[in-house]
């Protein structure tokens, strides 16, 4: 997820060493995959020969990378002997690299709305038929990307700070009379802002798209004096932790992070802005495509996705993974049955079409 890299320690690209040796010792796989690797360095994955012994994966770092490493990358390396190195994801950079025909990355993790233009411009490859498709990725993207996770941008507040009324809807987010105090909003990303402003202004969920930017930002003007801008999700989270704001609007995992650290925080799931999928896709002309497809397939399996959801509260994109999770884990995911019913689903396809205007209007509004 974009800008989640502030979540944790910035990690230098870590070379997973000893892959080949570990591959030979690998435990019986969760999957039907064949986990042996020969001395020449080439290996097999589900009967497909993989010659590359490494993958360069670009993502947004932070807590999501750390959790993915534990749930997906390390077990994959253990099974196949294929090492994974990291780079920092950047859509513009991907575009330049692929267009110059010398991509140095193999895989990029991207938001759903960032993925559609990549498919349209053939910047990512069609997946071979043997790679598992994820059913929670929309049908028009399934053949190009497996899923990574689902997240919601929603309201959260400290239960020990808000006396009296607590927020339930986005209209409450704007109601500074009944819920006094500042609101934290990130200034670096526009995601969900016009949608939530329109919901607060009384637009019916089914009529949010196409977005009426004028109306949305007129509504946001009302709230401006009560906003404290964070220059990242992390900064907004800190404002909430310090009690500087009454409510913060950030991804749901941020509130869970506060809860884990013993700070009494509640996540408002009602009208949570659900970004239902993000993608893992292989770049056109990727130097280690064969290994990248193998990792794609591995990450698409229910077991690693369920493991990931246990570590970080973002929803799996393979619905079978949900069946593997206990209720207490489901309760903190944006895609549990209960939370799905009350969420507002972001239209990634629409966002992809209006991306330029979507961010321009936000940037313009921020500068006031």
């Amino acid at each position: 997820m974009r800008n989640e890299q502030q979540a944790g320690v910035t990690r230098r690209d870590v070379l997973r060493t000893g892959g080949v040796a570990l591959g030979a010792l690998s435990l019986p796989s969760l999957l039907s995959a064949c986990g042996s690797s020969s001395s020449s360095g080439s290996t097999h994955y589900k009967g497909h020969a993989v010659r590359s012994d490494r993958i360069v994966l670009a993502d947004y770092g932070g807590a999501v990378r750390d959790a993915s490493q534990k749930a997906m990358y390390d077990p994959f390396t253990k099974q196949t002997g294929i090492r994974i190195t990291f780079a920092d994801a950047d859509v513009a950079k991907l575009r330049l690299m692929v267009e110059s025909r010398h991509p140095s990355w193999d895989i990029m993790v991207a938001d759903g709305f960032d993925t559609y233009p990549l498919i349209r411009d053939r910047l990512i490859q069609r997946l071979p038929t043997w790679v598992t498709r994820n059913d929670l990725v929309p049908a028009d993207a399934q053949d190009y990307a497996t899923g990574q996770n689902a997240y919601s941008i929603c309201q959260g507040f400290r239960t020990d700070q808000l006396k009296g009324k607590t927020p339930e809807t986005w209209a409450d987010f704007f109601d500074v009379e009944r819920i006094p105090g500042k609101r934290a909003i990130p200034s670096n990303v526009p995601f969900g802002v016009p949608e939530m402003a329109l919901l607060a202004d009384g637009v019916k969920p089914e009529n949010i798209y196409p977005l009426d930017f004028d109306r949305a930002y007129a509504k946001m003007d009302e709230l401006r004096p009560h906003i404290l801008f964070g220059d990242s999700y992390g900064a907004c989270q800190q404002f909430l932790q310090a009690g500087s704001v009454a409510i913060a609007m950030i991804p749901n995992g941020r509130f869970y992070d506060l809860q884990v650290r013993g700070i009494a925080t509640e996540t408002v799931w009602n009208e949570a802005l659900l970004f239902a999928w993000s993608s893992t896709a292989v770049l056109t002309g990727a130097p280690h495509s064969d290994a990248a497809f193998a990792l794609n397939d591995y990450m698409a399996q229910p077991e690693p996705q369920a493991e990931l959801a246990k570590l970080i509260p973002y929803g799996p994109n393979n619905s079978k993974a949900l069946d593997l999770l206990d209720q207490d884990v489901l309760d903190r995911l944006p895609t549990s049955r209960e939370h799905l019913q009350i969420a507002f689903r972001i239209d990634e396809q629409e966002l992809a079409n209006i991306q330029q205007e979507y961010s321009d209007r936000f940037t313009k509004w921020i500068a006031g």
Partner: protein
Amino acid sequence: MPLVTLATRAIHDKGASGIGHTLTDPLFEQAVTRTLVLALTVAVICLLLGTLYALALVTAKGPVKALLWGALLVSFWISLLVRTYGWVLLLQPNGVLDKTLRGLGVIHDSLNALQTTPAMYPGMVHIMLPYMVLPIYTSLAALDPSQLRAARSMGAPPLLTFRKVILPQLRPGAIAGAILVFVLSLGFFVTPAFLGGPSKLTVGTIIEREFNSVYDFGAASVMSLALVFVVLAIYLVADRLFRVGEHWTAG
């Protein structure tokens, strides 16, 4: 070289009319005014505080002197980001300042000081002060204490001593420090960005915004060049004034 690249970019992307358009953009003009007022005020405040601090450094003895030096150097060594973030923690709603003032009964709610234009000032003065103190101190250190004794033995009152003996000695350092602080403040980014927030743009933060959020590299280039030229002009003028000053002292 980077300047050439910038100039090419500016001319190529914008053209003459585009450059004019960028420079007269109301957002940019607001940022320029805000920055000039900020840089000038910060330079003046630093000049006053810096002179006092430097005088204290020269005259203090023993542990007090060590303490003053320590405070100055520690503030110089601590990362700029850390010092700025310290101000964020101080000024944010329900932060240290709010809690203190509430405890004293001065306010009941919150100052809401963070992400306002005034919030930039204390942070900027804090960051810039060492750049002022050090040049003034260097000038003052050259002052011969016997001159002070001479002035006193001649019966000059303290104010006269300051004006006739200390001030001329202090002047070159003060000018150098003031210009340094003013010029540094003009292009400063981190502190205004953190304390002023995304709506209170300065020249530094608006250039960053054009580059990283609006992706108008042409506009960013035009603004950067404008900043470079202004800074260059100030240096040239200052240099002239300086030399004039030197001749005057020598004569």
